[in-house]
């Protein structure tokens, strides 16, 4: 496993160099149907500028601030879904996620399905970080999980891949066509960021249902709605135009920025 983790490292770095700029251009150029109450399309150009300038100033590895145990919020707000409403999820929970598998597929060399136990055996990272909701509140929590970059090195990202899509178990809005299903996406710069982890523990205990059991994403340089809970499947893609609303995420399909760094 460890040998394949290091394979194609230099090629990926080379590929990544072009991603941030190209991603910003793609965002500015795509004309997304307005579900955000008719804010003029030109206002979306600010997102391109914000992403380009933050990426420029951050560099690839600038870390979000990490706090101490004393800073952990005693009551971390549960937002969005607090209990996925599906028989499939109820069955997984009933069995303490022993039957749950994280599917990793799409534009990868070796698709994989990992159990929670297998994930917990991999080298882990623990970080105490601030969670910033787009609404305005913040809370600090301690997250333990597997760096997403490690997993991606294991499965081997194909050169054509540009985004990582996270498919979740929860439906935040009940719709007939299933478009209320939660999902999120990040680009490869954030996917390989050292603080981007798939967390199975919070504040030293197994992740509870309210906070996304069995597994949630932490991508610490972006807002709360990027931190997808109830992860079921990870898919590497070259674009997300045909997926649900086509904007790369549940809230993005409802008018919010895909680049949620501000």
């Amino acid at each position, binding site marked *: 496993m460890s040998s394949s983790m290091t394979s194609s490292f230099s090629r990926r770095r080379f590929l990544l160099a072009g991603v941030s700029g190209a991603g910003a251009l793609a965002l500015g150029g795509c004309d997304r149907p307005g579900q955000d*109450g008719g*804010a003029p399309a030109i206002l979306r150009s600010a*997102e391109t500028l914000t992403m380009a300038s933050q990426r420029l100033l951050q560099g690839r590895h600038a870390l979000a601030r990490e706090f101490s145990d004393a800073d952990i919020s005693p009551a971390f*707000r549960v937002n969005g879904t607090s209990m996925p409403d599906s028989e499939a999820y109820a069955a997984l929970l009933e069995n303490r996620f022993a039957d749950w598998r994280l599917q990793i597929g799409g534009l990868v060399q070796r698709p994989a399905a990992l159990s929670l136990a297998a994930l917990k055996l991999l080298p882990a990272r623990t970080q105490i970080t601030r969670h910033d*909701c787009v609404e*305005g*509140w913040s809370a600090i929590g301690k997250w333990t999980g597997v760096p997403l970059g490690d997993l991606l090195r294991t499965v081997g990202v194909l050169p054509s891949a540009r985004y990582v899509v996270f498919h979740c178990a929860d439906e935040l809005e009940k719709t007939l066509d299933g478009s209320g299903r939660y999902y999120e996406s990040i680009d490869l710069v954030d996917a390989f960021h050292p603080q981007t982890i798939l967390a199975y523990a919070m504040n030293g205990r197994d992740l509870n249902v309210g906070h996304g059991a069995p597994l949630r994403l932490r991508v610490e340089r972006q807002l709360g709605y990027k931190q997808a809970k109830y992860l079921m499947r990870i898919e590497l893609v070259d674009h997300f135009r045909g997926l649900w609303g086509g904007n790369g995420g549940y809230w993005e399909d409802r008018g919010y920025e895909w680049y949620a*760094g501000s």
Partner: protein
Amino acid sequence: MKRKSELVRRHGAVTRVTHWLNALCFGVLLASGLQIFNAWPSLYWGQVGADTDPAWLTIGAAGSDADLRGFVRAGALALPTTGVLGVSRVDGQPAARAFPAWATLPAHQDLAAGRRWHLFFAWCLAINGALYLAWSLASGHLRRDLLPTRAQLAPRHLWREVVDHARLRFAKGDEARRYNALQKLSYLGVIVVLLPAMVLTGLTMSPGADAAAPWLLDLFGGRQSARSIHFIAATLLVLFVLVHLAMVLLSGVWNNLRSMITGRYAIEESEPIP
């Protein structure tokens, strides 16, 4: 008898253009900022703040749907504000929302659209302000026209200006060729303190900016402190604009407006000393 007056060149082109762009940005940022505030109408000190954390300011609603009551709570003090803050009418019905529909952009509750407006015009304000500051420093405008002279800062002089303002006695003749000390101090306060504070506290609320510049968090004492300071500085800017508009109206609205559009300002000759 009509007094003689002379037209002087008051404001340079850069000042005039950036002033009106700034006014546009400020209006949009204020209304969209109130929309964003409405999504979480509580303010805190420190890094964090949510449900159980003590808020120093909350604009909220209490009571049943049939009897909604709005309030503003600051510490132990709670004021009933039904009709304007906390509870106001939406489509004829009382609704729980911190700032009323007439004050927010968009009028209806829409955080996503409010953020689009706010972040676009934040860029406009920051770029416009940076260009103005760079020009003002390079051209000497800041030092020549906005920095109070030693004589202007003398307590006796300042006190006389306060009294003159209170009596609505405005400068004439040579005194009207420059800003008075109260003008200079309030303009400088806006230009070098309040507006930069707005931009920096706005950036501190951004997790991406915090990663790029962690010193922002130390400068303001945390993300929620930055959000509070953002709100306080915005309130001070609103107060400044109210006083500014009152002064524009009281000291000759057409002359003032013309000077900020064409640059030309009429100065009345001072009255002869009796």
